[in-house]
């Protein structure tokens, strides 16, 4: 419960500050009072948009979650294949590791224009940006983890008759799952960063798009709840991944 205290204080300070500003200027844009935010939130989350007939918050949420979900799934799949292959098979490590290290050093936002030029302004470019930003980190993390498996274990599996394929399937992969989930949790932050950056530049809906759209009207009453909502979504995703890990890999909870 003690952890809730800073949040309460922050909220309290905000309410006081916004009321002070409201008292001196009823048109204040910077710190909208809770009642103004509530009214705006109702327009966005409950009422249909007068122009398009959509409920904007849900439209934006769905678009963003689809993008980030798909991107993370693709990153996890690529990360798993290349991470395990480079971690376990020396020949593949020698061939690919320098390339992956180099790729992971490219600032993804620097190549965003290239993605838009090559792939157009549609969904593919946005999802690709997230994948490019997140995958190298996952690959390197999983490769390290796979390389850290005790050599004794791998030798033991061989003496039980395992081929390399069986070894990967039954010994390496199952022990990599929990690490993959941890890896995804750690990259959630940057995944959201890339998502919002891509949406801000070229999109017609999405949480990041909306924030950057209303920025020009100084609409803090939209931006602030959107930021809180994005944070809540990221938090929920992190929690869900943690839950999946505990369900799918009970041994990993025991072994620590």
């Amino acid at each position, binding site marked *: 419960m003690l952890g809730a205290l800073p949040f309460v204080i922050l909220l309290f300070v905000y309410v006081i500050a916004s009321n002070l500003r409201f008292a001196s200027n009823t048109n204040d844009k910077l710190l909208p009072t809770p009642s103004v935010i509530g009214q705006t939130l109702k327009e966005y989350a409950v009422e249909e948009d007068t122009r398009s007939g959509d409920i904007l918050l849900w439209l934006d949420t769905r678009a963003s979650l689809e993008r980030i979900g798909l991107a993370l799934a693709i990153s996890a799949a690529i990360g798993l294949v290349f991470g395990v292959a480079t971690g376990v098979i020396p020949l593949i490590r020698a061939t690919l590791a320098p390339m992956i290290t180099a790729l992971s050093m490219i600032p993804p936002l620097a190549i965003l224009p290239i993605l838009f030029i090559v792939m157009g302004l549609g969904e593919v470019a946005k999802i690709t940006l997230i994948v490019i930003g997140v995958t190298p980190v996952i690959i390197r993390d999983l490769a390290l983890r796979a390389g850290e498996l005790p050599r004794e274990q791998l030798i*033991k599996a061989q*003496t039980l008759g395992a*081929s390399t394929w069986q070894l990967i399937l039954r010994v390496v992969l199952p022990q990599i799952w929990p690490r993959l989930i941890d890896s995804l949790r750690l990259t959630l932050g940057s995944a959201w960063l890339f998502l919002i950056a891509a949406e801000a530049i070229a999109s017609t809906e999405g949480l990041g798009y909306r924030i950057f759209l209303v920025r020009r009207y100084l609409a803090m009453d939209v931006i602030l709840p959107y930021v809180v909502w994005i944070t809540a979504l990221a938090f929920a995703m992190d929690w869900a991944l943690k839950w999946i890990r505990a369900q799918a890999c009970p041994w990993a909870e025991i072994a620590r």
Partner: protein
Amino acid sequence: MGRDSALTMARVTARNLWKTYDDHVVLENVNLDVADHEFVTIVGASGCGKTTFLKMLLGIETPSKGELLIDGKPIVPEPNADRGIVFQRYSLFPHLTVLENVLLGLEFERSRLLGRLFGASRRNAIANASKLLESIGLASSRDKYPAQLSGGMQQRLSIAQSVIRRPKILLLDEPFGALDPGITLDLHKLILELWAANEMSIFMITHDIKESFQLGTRLVVFDKVRHDPQEPDRYGARITYDLKLKAHAERAAA
């Protein structure tokens, strides 16, 4: 087990065996001839090449000179199901339950593509594994994970895991080195029972001289006979003692 008929022999021969790393001589001129179904205990000071010798038997190190033969054929330079191994630690799979740890060897053998058995063949393998677990006193822990077992139980499991593939040769690298003395006695009994029940030779490295006399039918000592104080790596270790010990049954009768 279809391989039983092929397992009748496991003669290990080392002829003029050398192992060197650049200028560093680890083993020099090792000669050894071990008949089938012996229990060889290996002792020697640290750094005397015992583990190197075991690694060559395992196939993760290759001889620099000379020959190392199993049944007259050079040893396969890669670990395989002919030779089981129990390390001091880390040889269990933490993500598998006790039963699954034992089952794994059978699954590797009988399902080349998936390494996983289903249906009747799985039930059959489980029956096999359960019988083994029963005989080593781990039946009641079959659904636990290794991290939930004591050190002694873990080594018990690791031994069972190796034995289920019926290796010709079982290699033990200080398997009881990290355990309490009381627990070690139980494990001595277990390993002798398994050795008697299976057609296999055992090579066991130990630091415990008493243990080496109690368990072995053959005691091998590795030591350096030549020293160069200016260049300690100049000469390697060789077998300085090779003692035939009485069979356990005779000792028990005496």
